[in-house]
């Protein structure tokens, strides 16, 4: 398999420390409230909480319940709410307190906001006249380690708040997360980044660093790369075909665990499975292209059979040893294997049903800029047949980004058909997508190209280049086609791509496309900065930076493992495909990547965050 541990891999820092810190703080906070109490937990916090403090730790609270907007029976006269700082939730709590007041019930209330408070939330308490009845606190739970190399802020709302609404409320949160990592694991020698938000996060982090005590310990990471999700929308919009990504697309991995339904377990029960490097079978296939997974699993199954078969012809002593030493491991492996085989089968079935091949073909054509008319026809029929609302939207966005917006007549006709098929209220969704630049109508763009070609006949090529530059700087364009050419994201078609022996990161998309985000990271690390990539950054609307830490020059010389660890922070979410690509890159370059993300995302989550079709 392509991705088994290589010998020389630098060791990763122990992130379980982060869990311990968060847990200790939570316990400390809860212990501040004397006596027994009802604890309400925001539904969104249940899974993350489960990962750092299993419910037994919270047992002393006796009653825990996830917060949904309904009334509960209360046992105790102390209520504690563990919530994300959202105005809606605080309003709900205020109503509850006021209802108690009216009914003459006397209780004590405490809200613990995580990862931090917002003024707006506290003001709601004040306005509703319950400030003082309700006390508040903060639980600074910034980072949840999902795996050895994945850290998550578990803030899916970061994406919409920051990129669509333009609300910077989470900027300092991201800065604080970096600050936390730095305090626990040592400082960094170099920071690169691209994107508006990345810049702000860096600034916020820098402000924090300047003032905290400078730890002089050996750094555990060498470099940090900050990247905004809106620098690369193409990658998260593509269908995922590496195993972990595909599982996420189809079953939705939540906080590192997934629920396999009866169709996978071939029983009438659903099973919740943790998917991480602890699962020996999974860790071997997670980064593999799906087409390799079946072969691998069946080989594994055969090996397992042989291992079981050893029993035959054993004498009592050997049998005893076998049972004591091997059987448990084999049984465990057996269980995992049958689970993943079941999952693969179920995924195959689902994918054949939705004509996955044809879908992939369309995506690849879009990436390549080939047979666009056919693609449009395909998307149109997809919409006409009312097949998956999200998939249709995904294809439309992919078409728009790769083509720098849709021709006016296409935009109108596709939008009209979309609204007919999925509901006219999606007008609002289209407005959102347009604002983000995900789905646009070409403005004057066509005339530009016409003009360019006309001008091209009159003047030499160099001038045309300059003119084109001037034009493209006028409109905020995705420039995907030009970027793709410049960075060689799409390999030449017609070449065979052996997915068993990947030669570059394109394998995560069947050899059809190298994720733009990962390619940028690769290039910047290689050049140790943005030099020579001016044209690329200009097409990405600038906002790039690279800074060197002044004080760590002496440490930088010491060639330790840490120098080969790179922290990549995705602001607005990252996909499993990108993580797989970075793991591959790390292996090629002899370094390790640690991914910090505001949340794990995929095409569905990304687009669902932008829907506005229900109240």
């Amino acid at each position, binding site marked *: 398999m392509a991705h088994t541990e290589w010998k020389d891999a630098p060791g990763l820092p122990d992130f379980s420390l982060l869990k311990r*810190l968060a847990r200790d703080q939570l316990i400390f906070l809860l212990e501040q409230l004397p006596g027994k109490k009802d604890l309400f937990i925001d539904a969104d916090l249940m899974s993350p909480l489960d990962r750092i403090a299993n419910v037994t730790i919270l047992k002393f609270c006796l009653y825990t319940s996830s917060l949904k907007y309904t009334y509960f029976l209360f046992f105790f006269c102390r209520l504690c709410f563990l919530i994300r700082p959202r*105005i809606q939730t605080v309003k709900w709590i205020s109503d509850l307190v006021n209802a108690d007041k009216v009914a003459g019930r006397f209780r004590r209330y405490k809200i613990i906001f995580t990862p931090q408070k917002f003024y707006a939330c506290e003001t709601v308490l004040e306005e509703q006249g319950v400030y003082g009845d309700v006390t508040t606190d*903060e639980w600074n739970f910034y980072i949840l380690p999902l795996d050895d190399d994945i850290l998550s802020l578990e803030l899916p709302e970061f994406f919409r708040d920051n990129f669509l609404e333009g609300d910077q409320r989470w900027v*300092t949160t991201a800065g604080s997360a970096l600050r936390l990592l730095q305090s626990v694991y040592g400082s960094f020698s170099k920071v690169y980044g691209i994107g508006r938000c990345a810049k702000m996060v860096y600034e916020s982090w820098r402000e924090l660093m300047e003032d905290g005590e400078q730890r002089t310990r050996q750094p555990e990471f060498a470099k940090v790369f900050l990247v905004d999700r809106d620098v690369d929308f193409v990658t998260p919009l593509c269908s995922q075909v590496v195993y972990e990504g595909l599982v996420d697309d189809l079953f939705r991995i939540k906080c590192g665990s997934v629920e396999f339904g009866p169709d996978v377990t071939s029983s009438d029960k659903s099973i919740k499975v943790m998917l991480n490097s602890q699962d020996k079978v999974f860790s071997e296939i997670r980064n593999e292209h799906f087409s390799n997974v079946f072969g691998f699993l069946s080989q594994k199954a055969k090996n397992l059979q042989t291992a079981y078969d050893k029993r035959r012809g054993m004498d009592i002593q050997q049998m005893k040893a076998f049972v004591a030493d091997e059987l448990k491991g084999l049984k465990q492996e057996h269980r995992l294997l049958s689970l993943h085989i079941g999952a693969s089968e179920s995924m195959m079935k689902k994918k054949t049903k939705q004509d996955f091949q044809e879908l992939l073909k369309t995506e690849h054509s879009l990436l390549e800029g080939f047979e666009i008319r056919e693609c449009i026809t395909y998307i149109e029929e997809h919409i006409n047949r009312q097949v998956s609302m999200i998939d249709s939207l995904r294809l439309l966005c992919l078409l728009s980004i790769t083509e720098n917006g849709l021709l006016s007549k296409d935009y109108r006709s596709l939008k009209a058909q979309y*609204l007919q098929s999925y509901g006219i209220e999606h007008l609002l969704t289209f407005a959102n997508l347009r604002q983000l630049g995900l789905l646009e109508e070409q403005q004057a763009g066509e005339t530009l190209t016409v003009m360019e070609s006309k001008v091209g006949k009159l003047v030499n090529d160099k001038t045309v280049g300059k003119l084109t530059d001037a034009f493209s700087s006028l409109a905020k364009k995705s420039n995907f086609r030009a970027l793709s050419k410049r960075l060689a994201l799409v390999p030449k078609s017609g070449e065979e791509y052996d997915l068993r022996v990947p030669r570059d990161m394109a394998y995560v998309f069947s050899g059809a496309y190298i994720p733009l985000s990962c390619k940028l990271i690769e290039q910047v690390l290689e050049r140790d900065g943005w030099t020579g990539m001016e044209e690329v950054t200009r097409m990405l609307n600038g906002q790039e930076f690279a800074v060197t830490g002044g004080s760590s020059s002496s440490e930088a010389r010491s060639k330790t493992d840490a120098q080969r660890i790179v922290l990549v922070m995705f602001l607005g979410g990252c996909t499993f495909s990108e993580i797989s690509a970075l793991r591959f890159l790390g292996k090629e370059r002899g370094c390790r990547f640690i991914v910090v993300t505001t949340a794990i995302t995929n095409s569905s989550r990304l687009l669902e965050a932008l829907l506005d079709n229900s109240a």
Partner: protein
Amino acid sequence: MSRAKPEDDEYWNSSKFKAFTFDDDDDEFSRLKESKRAMNSILVVDDDDDDDEEEDGVERVSWSGEPVGSISWSVKETASSIRSGSERSFPKIDTTPSLSKQGSGYSLSSLFKGDLYDTAVRTYAPELRKPKSDGKTENTSLWSAFSLEKFRSLQDKLLLLDEAVAVYDGNLITAVLMYLKKSLSKEILFQELMARDVALRHYVHYLKEMGEQKLLVELMKALGRTEDMALMQYKEHLNIKDEGQRRDFLKSCLGLPFSQDDATHVQDHYTLLERQIIIEASDKKADAEIFKKFPRKASILNMPIITTLYYSCFYHYGESEGTYSSPANIRKTFRISEKQYILTALGARAKLKSWFDVDSLFNTKNWLGYTKKRSPVGFHRVVDILQKNSAPVNVLQEYVNLIDSPELKLSVALKYKCHDIVINTYRDLKDRQELVVYREKLERDSPEYRKIQELLNNVQIRWKN
């Protein structure tokens, strides 16, 4: 780009807040100090004695009631950064034309340091934070009037806002905006927000979250963003549960200044719901055969246009165009393309297994009176839909045969096991090998099997292999 930015006076000399210069008289400086103090008091509630803020000895209570050296921290830091601005371990990014960070860093950023230092301490050494003065904080409101009310002049207020924006903290920006909302008239606030995009977006988001629809609409109007305003008002319909009220609300939306395209769509929305209400009322008590045989699973209200068309093709097929519920009427009212209509009607009629209706969808007569099958969608798509609705083989075969491209025809036939077509295609290709292979996949002595057998025995065919 990675140079450490020296402290420069550019901002103070060039920006419109010229009044605030360091070398100006003490009054200005004290004003700035005041702004800083006020911002601090957002976090540090207990600051009634501001004058001794440089003393470390006084215990401070932070926003959440924890003792921190917040103010002393910030002041010390500020002092040191003035002395040696370039000694930072990490440099600032040289940001282009934004506000100079010096002025803002001077007061606002330092306030953070206090707070987040506090955070760090708490995270790594929770025992350090003993909530000694818990009760005290609880009774004081978060940022009580006295803290920000000192900012009376418009200039001061705006400076406050710009400083919040300059440190990139959305939380802080919103806090300042909330104060401005209270203390400025709408007109003035809107006016000032026009030139401040970041602040504006925070304000819009805050109003959205608070559900202040009316103010939001006013704001959009004042900004001249009429299309956004129209959409924002239109969005309200989602909160209306009762269909009659919803319809009336949509009707009231028709006059809003939508873009031309969107206006058509909103008009459609209103018409659609109006029709749906009529159809629903009559179908709820309908007792036609079809409703008994296939009871309705859900109401048709608020369904998309195409779903409504499907419903009407299912329950009201063949009604005359005059009735609202007829497919023809829906098709015409909502300008549904032929392709879309065929696909939808095909799905509905195939579901009912009325193959006759399916046939007539594609039948066209040419000028000689012959009927010929024609389709705006590829026949492989048609076969696909028929197959998904479990059409019998003979129906499938007929449509597979209509597929133009021989390769596509063969692959579809193989996929859906239309044996006759597969066999005939191979026969026409004179491909003996493939026939032999195909024979193996069939059941022995089935009619297809025998057919291949006969073909293979036929000496008159000149096989190519």
